[in-house]
């Protein structure tokens, strides 16, 4: 038996504080350039993230921006990942 929620929550939930959401940061233009140079790739070759993704929706990003994601990893301790913001209709 699932209880129905009586009213909508008044406060918006900030997912970034949730334990399962890794740290998302915006890369500066220089960081972005350095990244593309380091891996010798174009922006389209990077993994993607939707601009509406709950973790970044409040970060005021533009399509084409790069997000740096720092995750806790059971094997490496901490692992760094990059995603390019895209628009999905």
């Amino acid at each position: 038996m699932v209880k129905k929620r009586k009213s909508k929550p008044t406060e918006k939930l900030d997912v970034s504080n949730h334990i399962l959401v890794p740290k998302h940061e915006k890369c500066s233009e220089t960081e972005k350039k350095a990244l593309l140079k380091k891996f010798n790739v174009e922006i389209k070759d990077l993994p993607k993230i939707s601009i509406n993704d709950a973790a970044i929706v409040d970060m005021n990003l533009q399509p084409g921006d790069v997000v740096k994601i720092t995750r806790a990893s059971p094997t490496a301790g901490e692992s760094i990942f990059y995603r390019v913001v895209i628009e999905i209709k």
Partner: protein
Amino acid sequence: MDEYVHKKVDRIEFGFMSSKAIKDMASAKIVTPELYDKEGYPVDGGLMDIRLGVIDPGLKCKTCGGKLKECPGHFGYMELARPVIHIKFITLLYDLVRCTCRDCGRILIPKTKIDKCMEDLVRVELEGGLTARRDRIKEIITELKSTNQCPYCKAKQFKITLEKPTTFLEEEKKISPIEVRMRLEKMTDDDLKVFGINPVALRPEWTVLTVMPIPSVTMRPSITLESGERSEDDLTHKLGDIVRINQRLFENINAGAPEIIIEDLWDLLQYHITTFFDNEVSQLPPARHRSGQPLKTLTARIKSKEGRIRHNLAGKRTNFSARTVISPDPKLNINEVGIPKVVAMKLTVPQRVTTWNMEYLKQFVSRGPETYPGSNYVIRPDGKRKRITNETKEQLVEEIQPGFIVERHLMDGDIAIFNRQPSLHRMSMMCHKIKVLPGLTFRINPAVCEPYNADFDGDEMNLHIPQTEEARAEAEILMHVPTQIISPRYGLSIIGCNKDAQTGMYVLSKKDFKLTREEAVDLLAAINITDFSRLPDKEIVSGRDVISALLPKDFNFTGYSKVYKENKEDPDAIVKIEKGHLKSGVLDNANLGEGQGLLLRHIYKQYGPDFASDFLGKIFRLGNAVLTYTGFTTGIGDIDISADAKKQIMDITDNTYVEVDQLIKDYNEGTLETLPGRSMKETLELKILEKLNKARNRSGKIVADTARKDSELMTMIKSGGAGNLLNLAQMSACVGQQSMRGGRISKGYEDRTLSVFKKNDLSPAARGFIKEGFKDGLRPHELFFMSMTGRDSLMDTALRTPKSGYLYRRLANAMQDLKVNNDFTVRDASNKIVQFVYGEDGVDVTKSESGRINVKRIIEKVVTEE
């Protein structure tokens, strides 16, 4: 050798043939549905016209002059009375018709926007690749189809719908293929580019067929039945229908028949041509044989698992292979495979004759195909293969010169690739050295069962013989069993000791195992060791001395045995090897087992694959030999328990029954305290289950504590070779609860499981709890409950296998071209990044200790070396 590559394929572009191209390509015009005349000779202008190629021996192709097998076949063509839409392009046509003006044929984008649109597409492709561009085009199409005025000629546009499969309707009125074709002809080349169509390769009006290409006879051969009757290919049948209807349509048009009749025939022609291309179009009844089975037309030939691509191109059959039942042979090395003599005499290895091996190879030829080791074929330098028979062998021996190739029988030490399906990981196909043995089965060392996931209950395996020097070298370097000992899944040895070999090693490595030097020498000799200098020169030696004789002299190792987890103080808990001497600890499953323990991994790492493989073979045989020497039997006596223990177990179950009865009573009275989020009934079930499990565990513990520690059964359990404490407890004390879908058994009759129980009986026995052990036997209802769970798990496995197989197929296809690059990134075929560092940590699991790098051990090693 020079490479003679003058031109390389850079890219392939697919296009569509215009009517003119079809006519130019064709070598015959087909006008009649007849196939053969009275003499059985192909009719000119018929579907079996000999200008389309020949399939009868003796006839010559009129186009190329080639005979059967020389002539590749040639296309013909047929003039269609009325144009017909090609079913495979219907979606494209639908898009085009909706996005272009019905009057002037221009795309419904204003002139001002068209350049911007193209620029947008180029930009999208640059950013997101071809897929993004295609998606963008789709968006443009959805925008355009609702436009209702042409921006060029201002003509009003109507809504066009597609009535499946092939009819276009404009405001409920049919647009005939002629009209469709006319509209498409008006489209400009520049407009086509917006849709991503290259107008040189595909003008859209070409997809409305006015001319039909007739495939060659060679791709639809007829077969002659035993009765002398001819049976035609499905495609020929279909083409016959098309030609027949086409002729009728021509006649009716020429005779000026009423429009309705012509329309009907036209639709019929459309149907036949559609099913010729694809007989599985939805909303269209498939064309059938007279027997009722659907015709196999062009699409069915290519598509799906049985189609040309997956069946013939991606899945090829191979020569020089064998398949038979496998059986175990612990005397073989782990990198060997025993093959029957009959197989060895059928499969061959080509060997080139040189001045140095000529005499040697001549012996093989002179022995012929029926004496082992002989040879089956001789290949002359001009490439002609000659079969060796007992009659021709003398003559062939005389012929042999350097440069000939002799296909000799398989011999010991030849290289073979051995495989068991399903080939789920790379260890499913490994390279073995051949050992020719009597018998009719393939023999493998039981230690390599684990990587193949094989057992000997009737499993069959495949054997392949590489035919070139390169293939053999590659197999030996990349696939040889010794190189596969460490699994890339967890970085530990996947090949290890099990069952009797493991038990034997455990017995031998126990502290108080003593034997005379003579016996020790016997043991070592039994496993083909002739150097006894490493055995201490004493009258009585220990089992550990015997094991140490196999270890390398400079080997140091510290590990933990199974008992370490329970009791760290146990003298057997820590396995210590110093300078090749086993000082303490027992070699149980935790050190020698499959997929656990570091002992084998360290030996592999320090002394290489070949030594590790050899060592594994030795300890495997040593374990077997020890059991043979000491004798090892387990019997029903091993599961006996003392009267006292029996009493304790009885008490436990009785008490539990009382407790459960109390719970049921509480439940019936409604006083049972419910768990959060559970109903009363669920709470009861959970609590009962908990109680019963506890009872089984406690009786299991009593069994484990009171059972004889030195019984053979306990030895097997403790070594990890076979069995576990749960098995023992189930045999001697209590089988426990039979569970289905995570709960007690509840289905069956109305409110009860079996008719021997009262309705709504919730007591343990009525819901599948088996109180006593297997040794005490099962009551009828208990046997029934066991059968229920047994059948349930059997069905579960049978249903799960194909599901997981398909899951695996999808996973493998999705990941097949991912690759770890030199900068540690994982990328796909188009160089898109999937991971920035492989597996987040960049560790090659094969080179790690179960995924981790043990820095401490490396430091210790470096320090001790200095």
